[in-house]
């Protein structure tokens, strides 16, 4: 492990921003910090950068304790979610700024700056002032500056969150290309995001954060397929995974008096008793033979409709693959794909997933 965090604690007020956090990271890998707002992502990145001194715990890089090294002597680059550049400098000078802080020959400096600017596609904008650029271009400048530095640790704090939808999609694709194909294998890249899609797209290792703690760590696909707890299941899905409490009784899954169905095959090892069942919004579909629900709210987004519906004590969000107007109070029949059902025990830990049978007896 090249970057090690040991029991980091940071508690500026009454709430923990970092609650005894430990992890290890290797050079040449991409890590995604996935968590809701205020889950501690930014605090963790700033702690690694040295902008925040943790109350206790240590960060080690290649065996050296970083706590004693001030920010400006660490070999780190960071891109913020706000488009942060130096407003008084033009694009070229912005990108060259970190290199001019070091003893680098003029030739190499020029080469590295031009290369970085070209990689983010701003070749013709070198002498522009920052204020003349669009938000997306400003963020490209920030990225170019961090690339030119060729730092050993590159931190990206939700770099796309403040861009509009289309630009975000486009930049996300470009970013992952730059990172996966060209970014050097001597560095660690840490990318924070609230968007599970981003984690999937970047691949690499995903670390799920909540309330300053690491809930789960592993390859993105593994976390998506087998969320360790109900909280992870909520965080790693957008919209959050629907959680329904119910029970397994013999060969039946019972949600409430009106909703029960035969036990799916991957639940066969589960003992009878109380469980929390999880189902993704995308695994819910309109079906005449389904359970009756009342529409509470419907939002159309692109080619999909998000339907909030209720059956007695059960509230669900369904992600329907169609564009249709629903009236509030309208009756609909919804089918829950039981083959895609997750089961979590009373301790909120995963008991069985469609991809893996875990619990026994």
């Amino acid at each position, binding site marked *: 492990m090249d970057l090690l965090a040991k029991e980091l604690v940071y508690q500026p007020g009454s709430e923990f921003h970092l609650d005894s956090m430990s992890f290890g990271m290797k050079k040449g890998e991409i890590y995604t910090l996935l968590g809701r707002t205020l889950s501690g992502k930014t605090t963790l990145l700033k702690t690694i950068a040295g*902008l925040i001194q943790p109350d206790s715990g240590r960060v080690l890089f290649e065996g050296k304790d970083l706590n004693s090294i001030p920010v400006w002597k660490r070999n780190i680059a960071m891109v913020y979610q706000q488009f942060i550049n130096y407003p008084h400098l033009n694009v070229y000078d912005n990108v060259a700024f970190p290199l001019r802080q070091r003893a680098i020959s003029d030739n190499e400096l020029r080469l590295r700056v031009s290369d970085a600017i070209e990689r983010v596609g701003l070749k013709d904008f070198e002498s522009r002032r920052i204020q003349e650029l669009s938000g997306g271009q400003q963020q490209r400048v920030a990225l170019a500056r961090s690339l030119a530095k060729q730092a050993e640790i590159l931190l990206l704090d939700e770099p796309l969150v403040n861009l509009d939808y289309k630009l975000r999609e486009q930049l996300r694709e470009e970013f992952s290309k730059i990172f996966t194909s060209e970014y050097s294998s001597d560095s660690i890249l840490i990318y924070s995001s609230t968007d599970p899609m981003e984690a999937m797209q970047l691949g690499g290792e995903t670390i799920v954060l909540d309330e300053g703690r690491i809930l789960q760590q592993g390859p993105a696909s593994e976390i998506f397929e087998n969320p360790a707890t109900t909280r992870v299941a909520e965080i790693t899905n957008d919209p959050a995974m629907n959680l329904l409490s119910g029970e397994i009784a013999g060969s039946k899954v019972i949600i409430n008096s009106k909703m029960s169905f035969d036990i799916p095959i991957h639940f066969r090892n589960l003992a009878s008793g109380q469980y929390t069942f999880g189902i993704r919004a995308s695994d819910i579909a309109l079906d005449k033979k389904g359970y009756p629900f009342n529409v509470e709210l419907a939002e159309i987004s692109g080619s999909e409709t998000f339907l909030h519906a209720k059956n007695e004590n059960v509230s669900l969000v369904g992600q329907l693959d169609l564009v249709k107007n629903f009236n509030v109070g309208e009756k609909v029949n919804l089918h829950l794909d039981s083959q895609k059902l997750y089961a979590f025990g009373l301790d909120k830990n995963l008991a069985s997933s469609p991809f893996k049978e875990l619990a026994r007896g």
Partner: protein
Amino acid sequence: MRKLYITLKYLFIGLWSMFVVAPFLWALSTSFKDFNSVTGGATYIPWVDFEPSLEGWKVLLRSPAQGGVNIVEPYFNSIAVTCLASFISIFLGTLAAYALSRFTFKASFIKNSDITFFFISQRIMPPIVLSIPFFIMLGKLGLLDSMLGLIMVYVVLLMPIAVWIMVDFFNKVPKEIDETALIDGCNPYQAFYKVVLPNSIPGLIVAGMFCMIFGWTDFFFAFILTFTEVQLLPVAIVALNSSITPWWSLSASALVSVAPLIVVAFIVERYLSKGNLSGALK
């Protein structure tokens, strides 16, 4: 209804403009009068109401030996003291304001806001409260009637203004800019002068203007703490006001003293129009 509103608006603007201009016009007219034109009752238009005389203006340039007041030296004294004190106040005030805006200070119950209040609260002290002990202190230090002594006092007067404006300004500059500079390899001083200062020019100009205004217009400290060596402009002008009030030279000197600050008014307005000032004032 709308017409009435617009009429009232221009009426108000017109009346206020007259109110603003009236004392200046009166001073302009008076500056060309002599003893007889003044004591004969209020008159306004030269040649029509009274015979103009340049006596009031000539007195300003004559040396005291010839019965005049040399206003040139006090003029330059005022400029020097105001500029130097403003510069020192802005320099120290900006550094302190940056610290108060960016870093957290804590010593038992004292926090950043208390330190900021301490700076600004210096303005609450009326000049009279400080003038006697300052008189004694500068006397002991041998700095009475010296430029250095006056500058010391003016720094106390002006630094609170610089801190007040600059704390507010820095609070509106995203701290992520400084953080990026630190990450990019600047130590805190380099981050301050390479990145923060170049982006704070509007704030510095506004703070500078305010310091100049308050320094230039002070009378009381200059009146108490200087005698003959370093006479400042306001003191020199008020000193004209002896047994017989020479309205003509007083008026002329008043107009002369206002002149340089009219330039300041134009600069302030220019920044206001560009919207730069709004970021610097709250």
